[in-house]
């Protein structure tokens, strides 16, 4: 085994040797440098493997003395791991910077080598002064590297950096020397043993050491210099600073913390949280990519700092949490900075350039999701564990702040992602690519998945997770260049096999999960069938669609909260990409994502609290919670309600559903929303029996009723067909929420029945209208009209859909209304119930408008020759119609098993079945009989009238009585725009966009706050130095008091 | 009002001034002066309201007489400016820029008399008559009876009787004989 000291010898030796190399032989020097870093890396990897296999930690002593009389290095598992990280980053970073380094000459190559070597030493050394020396070495090397690409800005940034780090280093040196003075040793371990904080004056030494190391980690607000460096230096250098330097310095803090007393943990937590929140807040207002990354970087370090400060709470989980988040940050931030170098343009709006090279776009997305902490990346597990530990120890404020900071981070990161994916450009910005710049981010991109996989292997709760769907998705991604129909077939086959595997066992064991699984997978197959209508490659569609379905399947199969949350986040990510594929989806995708993240964090917090209460991750343990019931229930309910788009949390939905592609809208409306319903159901069947939750249920009931009312009213005033359906979805989910909130047998039955029905008819409507939109090229209903002649298939589908939706007998929607009446009366929620029933009647307004404006009335010139909807849309639609017909004619086939299932939780079986006749607590209903009666009557009447008017003259659209005139244009004769003007006059005030205005105001406030706060960073280097000093003073006074 | 007329007379060579009523005056102006005259009346003299524009066909003199009637709402006074234009080249400067509604009067005059008003909006669209392709019907050379007889399938009209005589004969045939034959 090679001694770790050779990392230094190689680094220094080669660096000195390079001085003798001919200045022209740049290629040679560069190669030598890379080889040297590679050797250093090899040593650390060798040590890492040895240590992982159980080798002992070694101390390396220099100069033949033992510490404290000499400098000593240590190579333990931490050191080996971190030096590996640094050397890998150094190698790839060197590769990335190859051109710039060669241009700058041998000196630059030397400096880079010294920089990497210095970081290695910083990690390994156990000697305080040695630490100082190498920190200075790194600092000087950094200053040199900052001006690798020499611009006015980078020079300014370098000067600010020198000034600030110079002061910090001075303070560090003072601290070290005082520590030496009081303890007589420079060895960190000995210093820790000496326990100098107890000595008089010793605490000042510790303060100086720690505060300077904290300052090196760029705490808010004393970090203006660091942000400038991130922004102005070569992105390759920024990547090194953000990934390698920060990692090393973080480990320094980890090491040195041994000498501190417990007060420092609080300081670290506060400083870290302040940084995390502060820099993420300021990031919101930022639109320069590298500075934005700087903010994010600083914020992540703040989070890590806080995690270190939480060491007493986290205990032995600390290393796992810190390592996962650190590694995620390391990989993602290096990758992002490298991408920034490839994109070159610093405005985040111009990152659309990545669209020229899809692999880079995928990398970009991956890194952003890593930063936010989505599965399957390491940071997800770290954050999960962190939240669990925090809530177990009742650190609710920290928990809330961490979630708040993460949310703020999500705002700007996803806005940025949206710009990259969707920002409209006539011609995309240019993109110049060198092979050496591509390799490092790609490698890191791969590494991040690998790291995710290995991290998940460390989490026992995920041992049951089935990775095959994820692998399948990866496989689909690799065949992305094939035509769409092949991928479609593969996807459908894959889903069918998966469904075949999971559905039968669920049918045997768990009816609830079976129903939702059937909706998710069956609906998935049907909606994918519509995908055959698309020509070309549809690149990127299938991986993300399947990702959403995989997430949904995981949710179904989850047995513990971690699996559930894992699936939830996967589903969110997949659906986000699906939604943002639409034409004008950029803002809607963002708002969807923000609500989803906020909801996910609420769920996370709720799960955390439930873990704190029960000590287990098991989903069914929710039932056993005895404390904090109200909070847990509310948090989880809010989280799930972001997906069901209840009033107040609904503003993302209309745009997202309306602008999505034709076959995506049914996926996200008919299927995705049910995930929220499933969550709420789980919540209610587990926690619904408590008295506290009943009160929340009362509120939820009113909320559901209001949602239904507002959703339906708003739908009635829409002109955009898909937006209308989207509002209709909001309202329908309002019914479901209302029914669920009753927490009674009938309520749950109603909700389940509605869920199934809503899936059926909303899929029909969205698929059909989507297909019509594809044919006619507009969403606006008033631009259509009279399409029944050209699109009889679509018309019949929509007709069935709206009859079912409206609740008119004999189709299935009536069952829902009947159950609702009984449930309302049984529960005693009369007034809310009346409101729900009232909104159910309002549904007629928009349903009529939908079918009339599109299919009836006057046909327009340009639509005279449109064809009927694509057969690939018609097939799933008519399969769904058959489903509706079956449920309508034989409601007992669905309702009886549902009733049996619900009896598990709410035992009073409320419906008595006698053949097709259901008898509830209040009334009775024979769906089968009604279907037959109405059918016979309708058919005989139709025949009779046909007999009477069989010789009717078929006339055309202008053959109408028009006050003795003739219509001039179909556009002026088709009454569709704003047809409910009178209704709007009377009731429009209910749907005035107050909620949207509320969220707009919130956004405005956050931006204004960020704008106000960020004026701290005036750009004056002197001011930044003052901040540094002031920070020290403030920390000092905090320590005193 | 006479002051006004006198003032205007100097500038615009008004002739044939007729003080029709205490609050209504006619005056005739040259074709070239009319537009500037009514512009002045509108802008300076307070005749802010345009009452009507009409036409008379003096076929014997081979002229059309156009009358622009203006109203001064503050003084409650009407002033009619007449001008004579040649029938052969019946063209008049359009005044629709002064009052928008003049364009409508001009459409009517175009349709009924065939007077051209260059640049007047929508001048050549059908106004009252739909599908009229004969000479303008209000020109006096147009023989409307002949046209009606040629076009409208006239019914044989019964011999016209004096209603009074007819009723007397019918109801009181014996009172006296008033037929010319019996008298004579």
């Amino acid at each position: 085994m090679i001694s770790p000291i050779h990392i230094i010898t190689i680094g220094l030796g080669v660096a000195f040797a390079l001085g003798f190399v001919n200045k022209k032989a740049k290629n040679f020097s560069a190669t030598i440098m890379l080889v040297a870093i590679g050797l250093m890396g090899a040593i650390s990897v060798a040590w890492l493997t040895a240590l992982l296999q159980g080798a002992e930690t070694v101390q390396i002593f220099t100069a033949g003395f033992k510490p404290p009389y000499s400098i000593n290095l240590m190579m333990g598992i931490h050191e080996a791991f971190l030096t590996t990280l640094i050397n890998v980053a150094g190698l790839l970073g060197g590769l990335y910077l190859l051109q710039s380094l060669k241009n700058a000459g041998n000196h630059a190559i030397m400096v880079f080598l010294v920089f990497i070597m210095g970081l290695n030493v910083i990690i390994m050394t156990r000697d305080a002064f040695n630490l100082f020396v190498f920190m200075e070495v790194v600092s000087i090397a950094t200053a040199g590297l900052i001006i690798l690409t020499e611009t006015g800005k980078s020079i300014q940034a370098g000067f600010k950096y020198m000034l600030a780090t110079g002061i910090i280093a001075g303070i560090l040196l003072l601290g070290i020397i005082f520590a030496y003075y009081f303890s007589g040793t420079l060895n960190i371990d000995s210093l820790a043993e000496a326990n100098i904080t107890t000595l008089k004056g010793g605490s000042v030494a510790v303060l100086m050491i720690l505060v300077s190391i904290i300052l090196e980690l760029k705490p808010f607000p004393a970090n203006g210099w660091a942000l400038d460096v991130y922004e102005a230096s070569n992105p390759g250098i920024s990547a090194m600073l953000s990934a390698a330097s920060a990692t090393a310095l973080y480990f320094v803090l980890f090491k040195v913390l041994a000498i501190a007393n417990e007060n420092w943990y609080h300081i670290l937590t506060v400083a870290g949280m302040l940084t995390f929140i502060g820099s993420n807040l300021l990031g919101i207002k930022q639109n320069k990519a590298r500075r934005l990354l700087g903010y994010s970087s600083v914020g992540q370090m703040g989070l890590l700092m806080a995690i270190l400060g939480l060491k007493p709470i986290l205990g032995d989980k600390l290393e796992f949490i810190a390592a996962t988040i650190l590694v995620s940050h390391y990989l993602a931030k290096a990758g992002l900075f490298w991408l920034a170098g490839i994109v070159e343009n610093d405005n985040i709006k111009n990152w659309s350039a990545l669209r020229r090279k899809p692999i880079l776009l995928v990398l970009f997305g991956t890194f952003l999701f890593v930063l936010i902490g989505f599965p399957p990346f390491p940071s997800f597990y770290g954050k999960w564990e962190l939240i669990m530990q925090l809530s177990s120890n009742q650190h609710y404020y920290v928990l809330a702040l961490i979630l708040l900071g993460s949310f703020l981070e999500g705002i700007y990161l996803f806005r940025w992602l949206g710009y990259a994916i969707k920002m409209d450009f006539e011609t995309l910005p240019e993109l110049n690519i060198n092979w050496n710049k591509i390799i490092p981010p790609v490698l890191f991109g791969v590494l991040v998945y690998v790291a995710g996989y290995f991290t998940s292997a460390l989490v026992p709760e995920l041992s049951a997770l089935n990775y095959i769907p994820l692998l399948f998705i990866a496989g689909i991604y690799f065949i992305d260049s094939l035509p769409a129909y092949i991928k479609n077939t593969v996807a459908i086959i894959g889903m069918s096999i998966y469904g075949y595997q999971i559905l039968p066992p669920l049918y045997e064991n768990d009816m609830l999960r079976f129903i939702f699984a059937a909706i998710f997978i069956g609906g998935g197959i049907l909606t994918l069938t519509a995908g055959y209508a698309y020509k070309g490659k549809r690149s990127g569609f299938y991986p993300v669609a399947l990702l959403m379905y995989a997430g949904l399947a995981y949710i179904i199969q989850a047995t513990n909260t971690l699996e559930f949350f894992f699936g939830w986040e996967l589903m969110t990510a997949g659906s986000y990409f699906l939604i943002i594929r639409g034409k004008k989806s950029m803002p809607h995708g963002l708002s969807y994502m923000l609500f989803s993240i906020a909801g996910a964090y609420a769920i996370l917090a709720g799960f955390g609290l439930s873990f704190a209460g029960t000590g287990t991750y098991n989903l069914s343990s929710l039932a056993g919670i005895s404390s904090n019931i109200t909070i847990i229930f509310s948090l989880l309910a809010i989280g799930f309600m972001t997906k069901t788009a209840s009033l107040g949390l609904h503003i993302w939905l209309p745009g997202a559903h309306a602008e999505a592609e034709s076959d995506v809208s049914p996926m996200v409306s008919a299927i995705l929303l049910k995930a929220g319903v499933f969550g709420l159901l789980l919540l209610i069947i587990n926690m619904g029996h408590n008295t506290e939750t009943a009160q929340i249920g009362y509120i939820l009931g009113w909320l559901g009723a209001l949602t239904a009312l507002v959703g339906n009213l708003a739908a009635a005033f829409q002109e955009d067909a898909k937006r209308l359906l989207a509002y209709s979805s909001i309202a329908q989910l309002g019914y479901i929420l209302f029914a669920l909130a009753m927490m009674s047998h009938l309520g749950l039955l109603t909700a389940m029945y509605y869920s199934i029905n809503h899936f059926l008819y909303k899929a029909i409507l969205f698929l059909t209208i989507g297909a019509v939109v594809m044919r006619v090229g507009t969403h606006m209903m008033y631009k259509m009209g009279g399409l029944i002649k050209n699109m009889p298939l679509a018309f019949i589908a929509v007709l069935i859909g709206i009859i079912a939706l409206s609740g008119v007998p004999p189709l299935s929607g009536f069952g829902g209304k009947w159950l609702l009446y009984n449930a309302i009366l049984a529960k005693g929620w009369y007034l809310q119930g009346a409101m729900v029933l009232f909104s159910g009647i309002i549904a007629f307004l928009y349903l009529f408008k939908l079918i009339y404006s599109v299919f009836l009335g006057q046909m327009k010139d340009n639509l005279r020759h449109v064809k009927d909807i694509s057969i690939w849309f018609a097939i799933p639609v008519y399969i769904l119609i058959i489903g509706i017909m079956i449920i309508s004619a034989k409601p007992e086939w669905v309702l009886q098993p549902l009733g049996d299932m619900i009896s598990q939780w709410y035992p009073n079986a409320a419906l008595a079945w006698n053949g097709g006749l259901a008898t509830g607590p209040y009334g009775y209903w024979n769906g089968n009989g009604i279907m037959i009666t109405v059918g016979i009557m309708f058919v005989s009447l139709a025949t009779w009238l046909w007999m009477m008017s069989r010789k009717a003259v078929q006339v055309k659209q202008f053959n109408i009585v028009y006050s003795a005139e003739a219509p001039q244009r179909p556009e002026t004769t088709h009454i569709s725009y704003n047809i409910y003007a009178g209704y709007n006059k009377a009731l429009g005030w209910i749907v005035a966009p107050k909620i949207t205005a509320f969220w707009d105001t919130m956004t405005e406030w956050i931006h204004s706050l960020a704008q106000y706060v960020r004026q701290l960073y005036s750009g004056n280097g002197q001011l930044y130095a003052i901040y540094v000093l002031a920070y020290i003073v403030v920390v000092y006074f905090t320590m005193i008091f | 009002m006479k002051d006004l007329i006198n003032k205007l007379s100097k500038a615009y060579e008004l002739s044939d001034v007729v003080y029709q009523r205490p609050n209504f005056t006619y005056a005739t102006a040259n074709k070239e002066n009319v537009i500037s005259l009514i512009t002045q009346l509108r802008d300076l003299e307070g005749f802010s309201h345009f009452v009507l524009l009409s036409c008379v066909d003096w076929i014997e003199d081979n002229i059309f007489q156009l009358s622009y009637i203006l109203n001064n709402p503050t003084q409650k006074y009407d002033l009619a400016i007449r001008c004579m234009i040649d029938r052969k080249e019946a063209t008049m400067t359009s005044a629709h820029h002064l009052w928008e509604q003049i364009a409508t009067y001009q459409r009517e005059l175009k349709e009924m008399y065939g007077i051209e008003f260059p640049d007047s909006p929508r001048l050549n669209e059908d106004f009252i008559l739909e599908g009229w392709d004969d000479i303008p019907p209000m020109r006096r050379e147009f023989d409307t009876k002949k046209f009606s007889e040629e076009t409208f399938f006239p019914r044989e009209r019964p011999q016209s009787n004096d209603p009074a005589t007819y009723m007397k004969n019918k109801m009181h045939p014996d009172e006296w004989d008033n037929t010319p034959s019996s008298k004579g």
Partner: protein
Amino acid sequence: MEYIALGTGMLVILAGLWAIMTRKNLIRIIIGFSLFDTGIHLVLVAISYVKGGTAPILDSTVCIQDAAQRIVDPVPQALVLTAIVIGLGVTALMLAFAMKMHKEKGTLDIRSFKDLKW
């Protein structure tokens, strides 16, 4: 004596910091930084001072047995050498930066280098 040195060092540090915080000229700021550095070095040396001690050289005047009492602490003295070197490097680099900044904008006023902010 050692307190005088220590106090002086501290004063020099504060003077240096004062200069860094208030002067607007880059060169003066760098001088301030240099003062700050020098002050630290003074403190370093002062801390290692032992009253009546002699140079930490083991020769005829100081024998090994009483070296611990007789000589001043050698470690800080060794450290200060390193620190001086580093300080020199940093100062030199800063001056180089200052020179380049002056070349860019023709001024040394730190307030005029605010291209990067927010």
